[in-house]
């Protein structure tokens, strides 16, 4: 569950967005899209691990890929790491996207916002392998931070929207879905909470799986840092780290 993984590559793929490839036997334990790893960026500081989603799992090569945005202390430090260095990685953690929700020939709509896009990549890959028909909608702030459009396009029709209209359609992922009247059997989404809420409102009666973010301590369910409320209860809760990060829409209060 915890290994020092070797950095194979760590390169910028869009403005402030990095693609990190890691190798070690831990990869053989990684299976489910939507799961995350908890990464210790440096020995001493910053102190806490950083939760990062699996973006691509390659069992043959024994490698996994993570795509992250260099923002705060931890991810900025991570972006300076060189191939050959090692990273202390705990994982895979959490419950990912349920693939069994769909069988061959059914239609999945994958909706990603910003740095929520990465876990959808492994999801798309596995769904397509299962014969599921995949449509992808990606939303970004602006042109400079768009990534992986072509890679997604190899799995299915891929739409891109930017909030400022500098690339693709101007607007939000919900606008794209409405505009193209996209339909689906199951919708999978990962992105900022307002996006997830909007999707839940747009499709109140459909099967949606939403991946949540929350500040974490342990990442394994022990510290109760990352709880969210369950509808209609004063004390019931789910932990994003160990019960999620993927929940069925309606399961938890967004």
């Amino acid at each position, binding site marked *: *569950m*915890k290994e020092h993984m070797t950095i194979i590559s760590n390169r910028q793929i869009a403005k402030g967005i990095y693609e990190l490839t890691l190798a070690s036997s831990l990869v053989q334990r990684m299976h489910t899209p939507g799961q995350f790893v908890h990464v*210790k960026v440096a020995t*001493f*500081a*910053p*102190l*806490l*691990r950083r939760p990062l989603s699996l973006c691509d799992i390659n069992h043959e090569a024994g490698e996994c890929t993570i795509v992250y945005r260099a923002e705060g202390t931890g991810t900025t430090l991570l972006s300076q790491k060189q191939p050959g260095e090692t990273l202390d990685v*705990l994982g895979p953690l959490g419950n990912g996207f349920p693939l069994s929700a769909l069988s061959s020939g059914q239609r999945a709509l994958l909706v990603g916002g910003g740095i929520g896009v990465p876990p959808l990549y492994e999801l798309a890959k596995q769904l397509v392998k299962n014969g599921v028909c995949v449509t992808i909608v990606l939303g970004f702030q602006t042109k400079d931070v768009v990534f992986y459009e072509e890679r997604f396009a190899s799995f299915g029709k891929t739409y891109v929207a930017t909030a400022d209209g500098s690339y693709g359609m101007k607007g939000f992922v919900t606008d794209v879905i409405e505009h193209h009247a996209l339909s689906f059997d199951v919708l999978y989404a990962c992105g900022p909470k307002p996006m997830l809420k909007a999707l839940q409102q747009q499709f109140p009666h459909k099967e949606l799986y939403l991946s949540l973010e*929350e*500040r*974490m*301590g*342990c*990442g*394994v*369910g*022990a*510290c*109760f*840092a*990352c*709880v*969210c*409320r369950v509808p209609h209860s*004063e*004390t019931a*809760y789910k932990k994003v780290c*160990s019960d999620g990060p993927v929940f069925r829409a309606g399961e938890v209060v967004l």
Partner: protein
Amino acid sequence: MNRLAVELPGLSLKNPIMPASGCFGFGREYAKFYDLSVLGAIMIKATTLEARFGNPTPRVAETPSGMLNAIGLQNPGIDKVLAEELPWLAQYDVPIIANIAGSTVEEYVEVAKRISKAPNVHALELNISCPNVKKGGIAFGTVPEVAAELTRAVKEVSAVPVYVKLSPNVTNIVAMAKAIEQAGADGLTMINTLLGMRIDVKTAKPILANVTGGLSGPAIKPIALRMIYEVSQAVSLPIIGMGGIQSAEDVIEFFYAGASAVAIGTAHFIDPYVCPNVIRDLPPLLDELGIQHISECTGRSWNNGQTVYCGA
């Protein structure tokens, strides 16, 4: 001879290493990483009379060499702890120290009475950092008389020895410790977290939804050591030390300051294996330091190697 074995009131510990309350849940999560029977003891999450949801999120924030938490005593309540958590823990050969909390003396007493009768609960740990609702929000942990009254009330009903967990947010930690000793406590655990906060520079809002939270981790280690050093010389109760411990060296430093056992909290979030690793690293470190038995270390910074607390 097991050179790590330690005897404390109510506790025959195979080693003096235990997870600190609130950082290890009720053990289920870390049981996936290793056999919990290797631990000296387990301090389980604070239990209150009723189930509590706790504070809104974000509940944690990072600080230099530390973290803030404002979990807000989320727990399933005494009934569920007695019915589900403690029986599950009973499969392991490890004594449980039950951390209890409440808003009134009566709530503490009720929880203490019931939880202290559970077969694998060998000691109670009173978390006195909660505000006393009846006394208008004065924290149990900052006024010696209030802490003493609570200690006395809980001692009266508890079926097992009672340890009181000191808050570091006080002017005079020795006065707190002495009052609690006189009230009949069997031991002290220290320190709980220091009150702190962080503000998001982008939004100008406190990072924690609760605004302030408890500071833990390596950052507070020097404060914990100083307090244990002071208290261990002023009272004759055994001390379970905590505050930023990450390694076997840290454990020895806490013993030297005056601790007779230690608990590890925040370090679990950095390394889930921290407890077994520290337990593994201690015997070679004792060899290196030329120390036979870990108990010899207690108070060595001020007593030149005499035994301070010996339960035997």
